[in-house]
């Protein structure tokens, strides 16, 4: 449904003509029914990618299409549920007014508008802030208003840029539930986030960007056993784990602890071997997620 074909964006300073490549040769396709994550360090090109998708910027090379059409053509006909990284709304508008206005633009019928906004405010815990102006909201509450306006209209494409930015742990969890409830076979949800844990829980696939280039696309964690990840393994007493695993080293600061880089089957085999020799296992857990491993390898930092 969403297609980036060799898409690139280079900014040129109007006076110095200095060129900054924000995105280069991006090939990416997102299908209906999937939740797609975008990860990358600061300056990786995530926001530029989203601006290209929204048609707020034009690519300097390649092309971006939604359902085969240029982004602005698609959006002007169908709309997109879009949460910006920095939620920006006129500061003096009251919360329900802001949402009713956006509901109007989203095409929510006038007879349903107020009820839709009221229900959404309740769902996102905004009812108690109904009397407040946008400028009086805390960062977390403003983020929830941003999320609410993105959910108005029930669009086939939903784009969430740093959706849990400023949310407390409770609302971060609720946000995950909301995204799960948004899943539909005919809808594509794109989430750009610094939070790898969040992407790992929500996304079916995650594209890792760095320095404006697509480094790799990681499929939903747990769906493959072939990828190596980092493990923390602790035994009671000394165990010669290095004899059974290639990439293993003592875990700094943990007595009889090991840090291993291996796939699940490799770790299982090694553990079976040492446990068979009488070793006593205290702990064996992923030291980082598979997405974190992939991210670390991709950005080489």
């Amino acid at each position, binding site marked *: 449904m969403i297609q980036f074909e060799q898409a690139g964006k280079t900014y040129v300073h109007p006076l110095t003509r200095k060129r900054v490549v924000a995105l280069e040769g991006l090939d990416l396709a997102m299908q209906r029914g999937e939740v797609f994550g975008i990860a990358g360090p600061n300056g990786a090109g995530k926001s*530029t990618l989203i601006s290209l998708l929204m*048609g*707020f*910027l034009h690519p300097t090379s390649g092309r971006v299409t939604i359902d085969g059409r240029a982004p602005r053509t698609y959006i002007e006909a169908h709309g*997109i549920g*879009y949460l910006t990284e920095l939620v*920006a709304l*006129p500061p003096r508008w009251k919360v329900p007014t802001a949402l009713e206005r*956006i509901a109007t633009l*989203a095409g929510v019928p006038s007879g349903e508008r107020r009820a839709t906004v009221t229900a959404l405010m309740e769902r996102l815990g905004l009812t108690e802030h109904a009397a407040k102006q946008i400028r009086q909201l805390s960062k977390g509450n403003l983020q929830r208003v941003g999320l609410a306006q993105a959910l108005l209209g029930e669009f086939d494409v939903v784009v969430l840029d740093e959706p849990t930015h400023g949310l407390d742990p409770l609302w971060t969890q609720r946000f995950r539930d909301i995204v799960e409830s948004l899943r539909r076979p005919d809808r594509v949800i794109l989430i750009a986030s610094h939070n790898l844990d969040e992407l790992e829980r929500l996304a079916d696939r995650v594209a890792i960007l760095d320095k404006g280039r697509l480094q790799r696309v990681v499929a939903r964690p747990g769906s493959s056993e072939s990828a190596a990840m980092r493990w923390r393994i602790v035994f009671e007493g000394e165990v010669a784990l290095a004899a059974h695993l290639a990439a293993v080293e003592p875990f700094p600061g943990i007595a009889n602890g090991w840090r291993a880089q291996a796939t699940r089957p490799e770790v299982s085999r090694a553990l079976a071997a040492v446990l068979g020799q009488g070793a006593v296992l205290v702990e064996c857990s992923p030291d980082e997620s598979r997405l974190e491993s992939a991210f670390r390898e991709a950005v080489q930092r």
Partner: protein
Amino acid sequence: MNRDQSPFRYLGWHALDVARGPLVLYLVVSAMLSFISWKMAQAMPVVPTPDVFQAQTADATLTLAVLLATAGIISADRHNGWYRAWFSKPIAPWWYYLQRWLLGLGAVLLAPVFLGIGQVIVLKSGTGITADLLGTIALGYLLIGSTALLLAHVTQREWLLVFVLAAAQRGLAGLVKLGVELPSYAEPVFKALPPFHLIAPEEPMLTGQPLLHVAAYGLAMLVAALVLVEKRALGSGGRA
């Protein structure tokens, strides 16, 4: 979900913004001017007739009134990043801004109506509103308002730029009227600038070639401003 696809679905909100913004201001200024004219009528044996008072007021305030109605229509949205919320929804930016701009015209045309009502109330006279006056105000809105809309693509303070341009152009026109020969570099500048000097509410409504000149110039800038809204990237950076 059934979707309201009416292209006019946001018009009510636009109208509310115009009513709460420039329209209220015009109402207050009209009330103040009516009060002043009432005081003048008490103090002076001869006061301007309502139509002259209307024309003089329009002459003195038209540029300001138009800028009040048009400033920030595009530039505030772009500068503050509000456009990201509006234009992720199914509406064409050019249409969104055109509706707001046309409502501004309605507001500016209501200003003499408010003043006329004030005149009727305090002086027990006529409103002083003439077709020529309304025509000139509409023409002035087309020229000044479309200049503001176009310059909003360049600067966040388009109102200031229009004000400076209008002052410079009227200054040059004044020199030409006095028979002063413009320097060779100023001549093409004068010709290229919007013909603000032709908007004169105290004079009869333009006809013929000057009318065509102003109308064509205004329309061309309006179309250019709206085409730019569609064709030019609304953002200027990843997060902008």
